[in-house]
């Protein structure tokens, strides 16, 4: 029998079983996430088909430039994340930390731009609630568009914030030399999560920013 790897938890027979379990668990978790966001997407579809005109108006008031930049930033962060996973599998501590740092920077950039966008919307009175001040055509329905905008991007941003926290946690672990060629599961699993969050945005961007533009 080979020496027990320090990363092997007591209730698993070997690292292979442990790895497969983590993988299945992560995928099941992502399925759960799809249904969670699915509720929002369903609501969006229902109201978009009820109020297509208002959704176009609402969409046209969003800042496509910032949204587009953010899309590029997120895709870039997916690349750096994939590289972090690659180096984790090789067990290269320095490179893992490097690419996790880059991912963190890109993720924070995304969130920063989101804050700028939100504050613009706030100043233009497009945040649903007491302060909602849009008074153009179809005001009530436009407000529903903005409800979805904030609910969906907000929920997405929340996932990004949690992700950023996890990156910091992974960096600490990496710095302590926990990831080796035999064991890099946490980085890989987090990679799946991060890509998932990116993909959600890939759907959000056209649905929110691009409808009714030609």
């Amino acid at each position, binding site marked *: 029998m080979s020496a027990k790897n320090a990363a092997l938890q007591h209730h698993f027979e070997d690292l292979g079983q442990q790895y497969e*379990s983590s993988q299945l668990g992560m995928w099941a978790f992502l399925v759960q996430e799809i249904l969670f966001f699915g*509720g929002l997407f369903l*609501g969006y579809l229902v109201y978009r088909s009820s109020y297509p005109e208002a959704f176009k108006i609402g969409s046209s008031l969003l800042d496509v430039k910032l949204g587009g930049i953010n899309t590029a930033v997120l895709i870039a962060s997916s690349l750096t994340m994939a590289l972090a996973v690659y180096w984790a599998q090789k067990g290269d501590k320095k490179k893992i930390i490097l690419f996790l740092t880059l991912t963190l920077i890109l993720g924070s950039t995304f969130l920063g731009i989101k804050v700028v966008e939100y504050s613009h919307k706030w100043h233009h009175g497009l945040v649903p609630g007491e302060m909602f001040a849009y008074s153009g055509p179809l005001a009530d329905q436009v407000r529903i568009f903005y409800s979805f905008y904030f609910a969906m991007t907000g929920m997405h941003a929340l996932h990004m914030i949690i992700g950023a926290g996890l990156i910091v946690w992974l960096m600490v672990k990496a710095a302590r030399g926990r990831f080796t060629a035999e064991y890099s599961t946490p980085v890989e699993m987090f990679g799946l999560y991060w890509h998932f969050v990116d993909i959600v945005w890939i759907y959000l961007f056209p649905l929110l920013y691009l409808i009714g533009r030609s």
Partner: protein
Amino acid sequence: MSTAVFKHRADQQAEDNGHTKNYLNAGFSAKSWLLTVDHKRIAILYLISITTMFLLGGIFALVIRLELLTPAGDMLQSETYNKMFTMHGVVMVFFFLIPATPAVFGNFLLPLMIGAKDLAFPRLNLLSWYVFTFGALLGVTAIVFGGVDTGWTFYTPYSSTYANSNVILAALGAFFAGFASILTGLNFIVTIHKMRAPGLTWFRMPLFVWAHYATSIIQVLGTPVVAITIILVALERLFKIGIFDPALGGDPILFQHLFWFYSHPAVYIMILPAMGVISEVICCFARKKIFGYNFIAFSSLAIAMFGFLVWGHHMYTSGQSVYASLVFSVLTFLVAIPSAIKTFNWTATLYKGSISYDAPMIYAIGFLGLFTIGGLTGVFLATLAVDVHVHDTYFVVAHFHYIMVGGAIMGYMAAMHFWWPKITGRLYPEGWARFSALVIFIGFNLTFFPQFIVGYLGMPRRYHAYPEEFQIWNVLSTAGATILGVGYAIPVVYFIWSLRYGAKASANPWKAKGLEWEKADSPPIAHNFEETPVVTEEAYAYEPKRG
């Protein structure tokens, strides 16, 4: 090389303390419980939490039944009454019945039944208990600060726009309980896929495990939808986002769709694990192999799948399209089939068995009868024309109590008695147990059967006053509820008594089949088995009766 050489730290400690080691004496400090990652201890933590919630929910039930003793609304104001049935429903559904069998018995037994040392993610398991308890505390806070009055279904626009009670707190409580339920389901799925002992193929697994597999699928697929729905209701209340507010162009019916998309499958989260219990108990006390193993296993999966396609049967009168209602009606008829298959198979298992009537079996037989009544009346309700007549009457209340109390809680009680010796290492007093099982059976029927009648006669649910001619049925029901309450109180007393004074249980007091009985001690050691068991036979290989 065998894994037994690596002694579990906790087992080593127990030995050093000079006991026969087991998971209970592996540590006595509060920390050894509150930070445990042992699935068996977490099951006990859950048991304590949900029993507390059950008592709380029971108090509300008692108040409801007292008010309904007389036709006039004389004890409570209508607003207070609304709060009582809401809090009863919220507590019982979200904080008791959904976690009950999976989080206690599933947690305790799954690893033992499949020959694993623990669930795949022990820390996640502990986290789920903390998340659940946090949710339950939010729920209790909502109650302490004046309660909620929306009904357990939180229908909009009342919940989102008009209600003046602690809707957000209570709904967030349900949100966190749901989160815990997702974590449990995820853990079970991975455990069942990846942690089975050598030789334990899918079709050798106990049906209890199959039932929990199907339950977990529902938990993982359904719960996130109600989670996001709850968040939208909270946002609607906080920021008037308009999604469910007709005054702003929102659609309150959308809430019902989203809610029932989860909550119909959720009724199967409550019943499927109990069905798993029944398969185990019936085989053991009829001393027979299960009849139609594959059918029972696959019917669990069928329920998990079809259960997602029938939510519209709660909305026949909501104004949804008649054609949608038609389709939902047909699909609802279909979903009754897998349940019927199970019931027939259990009955066939009893046929020519050598049956003994110990308490778990009394509960199991009670389950068969009561679940059948509940299921068949469900088919009545699935029939469009009938449902328009009885929707939102006591007929519906009786239907789901027959299934949730007569089915799910009977199964839970069967599990409680069947595995109590395994969990605690003590025997409960059999005479008292049989007696209280009968009391519960009688009390239950007296409580809920009259509700079928009074509902059919037209008494609506959720009112604190009613016409005089309905009084007799309500008096019967309240009398039954009192008996039922006594029936539930007796086991609480003797279970606690048995912890100290009960006779010591052997590893397999029922001579039952299954790894948890044949290969593990009572109570089991901290890492379950001395050596990883190897499975060489099918489930339920009971000796056939001679002669």
